[in-house]
């Protein structure tokens, strides 16, 4: 909707510069009171595995993976910070790779294996990364935290797998868990509370304990 509104305004705004008063009409594509047939939402069946459990859902095809998790499966650990793939709060691990779950439709994940923050550990049984975040205070308000932790776990896997990053000096050599590498790879996860320095400490400790090359 913003695209449509802004385009309308920009076009008229350019014409109207200097005008004392003008009428702006924000018109929908459909003018009649009756919805056009194409507006009827389509639904689809999708089945995937979330945290080891098979889930079968009948979903509006516009439903993102994030909203399927949060609104349909009530797994609200994955957060909606921007719904635009800009903040990383919705990061989950799908088939071993981290993704922004707000940028992908649920129906695209037939047969996928999804791991959310709830699948990594629980309050009584923290995963090592979750425990390290608590120990090093790698969070404040907690809203970006599940995404940070899912990303952090996946980043260490990426380094172990030898996947280079923008700051890797040698694309063919094994990567290392240096602070620069961690910061670069974590930069898709925004923390407005500014816990970055502590998050890197938490990740470094987990990397060291798990023998990821430093």
């Amino acid at each position, binding site marked *: 909707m913003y695209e449509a509104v802004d385009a*309308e305004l920009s076009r008229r705004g350019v014409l109207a510069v200097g005008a004392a008063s003008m009428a*702006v009409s*924000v018109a*929908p594509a459909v*003018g009649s009171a009756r919805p056009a047939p194409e507006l*009827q939402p389509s639904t689809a069946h999708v089945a995937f595995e979330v945290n080891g459990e098979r889930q079968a859902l009948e979903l509006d095809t516009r439903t993102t993976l994030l909203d399927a998790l949060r609104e349909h499966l009530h797994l609200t650990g994955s957060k909606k910070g921007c719904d635009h793939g800009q903040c990383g709060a919705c990061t989950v691990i799908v088939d071993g790779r981290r993704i922004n779950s707000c940028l992908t439709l649920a129906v695209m994940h037939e047969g996928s294996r999804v791991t959310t923050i709830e699948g990594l550990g629980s309050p009584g049984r923290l995963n090592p990364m979750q425990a390290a975040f608590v120990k090093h205070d790698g969070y404040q308000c907690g809203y970006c935290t599940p995404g940070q932790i899912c990303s952090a776990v996946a980043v260490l896997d990426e380094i172990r797998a030898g996947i280079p990053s923008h700051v890797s000096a040698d694309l063919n050599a094994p990567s290392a868990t240096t602070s620069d590498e961690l910061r670069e790879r974590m930069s*898709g996860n925004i923390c407005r509370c500014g816990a*970055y320095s502590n998050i890197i400490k938490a990740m470094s400790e987990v990397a060291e304990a798990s023998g990821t090359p430093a």
Partner: protein
Amino acid sequence: MKFDQPATTNPIDQLKVIGYPHDRIDGPLKTTGHAPYAYERHDIVADPAYGFILGSAIAKGRIASIDTGAALAAPGVLKVVTWKEAGPLAKSKNHTAHLLAGPEVEHYDQAVAIVVADSFENARAAAKLVRIDYQREPGRFDLSQQVGRAPPKGASSGEGSGSEPVDRVGDFEAAYASAPVKIDRSYSTPDQSHSMMEPHATLAVWNGDRLTVWTSNQMIAWAVRDLSETLKIPKENVRVVSTYVGGGFGAKLWIRSDAVMAALAARAAGRPVKVALTRPQIMNNTTHRPATVQRIRLGAGHDGKITAIAHESWSGDLPGGKPETSVSQTKLLYAGANRLTADYLATLDLPEGNAMRAPGEAPGLMALEVAMDEMAEALGQDPIAFRILNDTQVDPEKPGRAFSHRNLIGCLELGADRFGWSRRNPRPGQVRAGRWLVGMGVAAGFRNNLLMKSAARVEVTRDGRVVVSTDMTDIGTGSYTIIAQTAAEMLGVPMETVTVNLGDSSFPASSGSGGQWGGNNSTAGVYAACQKMRDEVAQKLGSNSADIHFEGGQVQMGDRRIPLAEAAGGMSVEDAIEYGDLGKTYQQSTFAGHFVEVGVDAFTGEVRVRRMLAVCAAGRILNPKSARSQVIGAMTMGVGAALMEDAVVDKRIGYFVNHDLAEYHVPVHADIPHQEVIFLDETDPISSPMKAKGVGELGLCGVGAAVSNAVYNATGVRVRDYPITLDKLIERLPEVA
């Protein structure tokens, strides 16, 4: 409990629990995704309707007509609420603009309608079908056009330092005219966005004429008051719950359109409705930190003593709004007999300006502390020595009024030592490390310590658990943890024995979270309630408070030891901390020395922060781990303010163009190096029984200037127009190979 005399020795001084870097007690919930935020209350309402807010497409004018027919006929739509359906609404005195527009439109993206549907997807799609004809009027969107003409205007937002419109001491003009060394500089700071990670969100549920909102709010009692005023319903009929808050930084001090529109929508639809603002709506629908233009004049003798100091600031807001009080700290930070400070307020038709973390001081120090750097250079003095020379232990405007405790000098000296300040080359543009020009900068940090009444209830259960309940919020600050520490210390029980319930207006009203007052005041309120519990237990046992001790889960009276569960099981008390006039008798403030090292790419002008250190003097530190996190987070925000944050105004249409996290840049991991924080070991018994003060905003105050001064030291280029982006540096960088 009335606090009107400085604290003497009290149970907090035992420091058995207080002062330790406890992990946050809410950590396991937050790190596993089990802490429920406002939009996630499936436990409260299994099947809410979804609201989607439509914002105004114009900045100023009128709604000529609204046609909701197509939206209402769209799949899944239950209701559409506009000003016509909303019923009579008022504007609380804490809102400058109405939270629902109609027929007048006051700013771009002001809510004009909410569409309620059975799913988020249907509500969002139907919002596109609402047809609105606007009558657009010209607006005022350019602050620079009103600089020099806007009238003086004071402010006291209740969040931060109040400010008279114009303050004068001595004869500034004469002293400045005759000063042998002087500078006259102008600086500008842009509009900034809080950009907390959790968008504003509310779940609204009506039960008859009683409304409950699960929302994301910093100040529960204010939210109750403002919902009651806006909806014209009795306060007793409003309950507000914010168990977890995904950041606020001032954006959630007051309810926003999500709360009001959710309430209206739920009433119209006859069922619970939840609403979250979209990320792009946050910038134009809610509030922002207003841009400033600031002029600073400093005059000094050859000895470096300031004789004349003037700080004037221009900012803009909607009609009836308030200025960004950027001159507040300049009234108090440095000595000088002749002084002038003034805030001027332009009228702008941009979205509402309001408090963002350290309102006033954050942009004010970005100017003042650069001016101090420039003045030190003009005097040929070291910037730290220059600041120390002009330190004051009394309020410079009222010399009979002392600071309760002030050790800015200690912050600067210790920081200089730890940071290696002596290695700084005072001549700018001299230090190269490979392709990097390297420089160091310093700035003083300053922010007042504010005292607010705060209440709490403390219960001891029959099995000996201690339960603390207060409407205090934890917005990432660590409230849950320091409140548990306070109760554990006061009642002599281990942390694990304490349960803390926060963020519910059915609990006693606290100070809330804002203005870095939350930590000190809310724990002082818990102290008061615990002290009352101690008194009542003593009375019950036929003793007096002075003769009994609470330790190890037991109450000790002479040789007797009684388990707390036995002595106090089933007891519940409530009390509040209320302050006398110590906040007026003494100036209560917090202090920091901020040190930054940057590298500036000699070829591209790219600025990278290499090292950061903050040395803070803020009274007793209740939990060094969570306090340190507050400070490093604030330092991070300071880097953003210095180097990237800039809400760009489209001056034709009147809105912030870069209204999301891809276009409005905040620091990411790669921007922030390892950060060091040192707290001076001190207490301030004049502040509260906790002897603590605030740190959450102190950590931000001065950081931007320290970055700016470091960039200057690295390059010799002084950028007075924030943010310091490479385009402002590159033309003037030293010649390279």
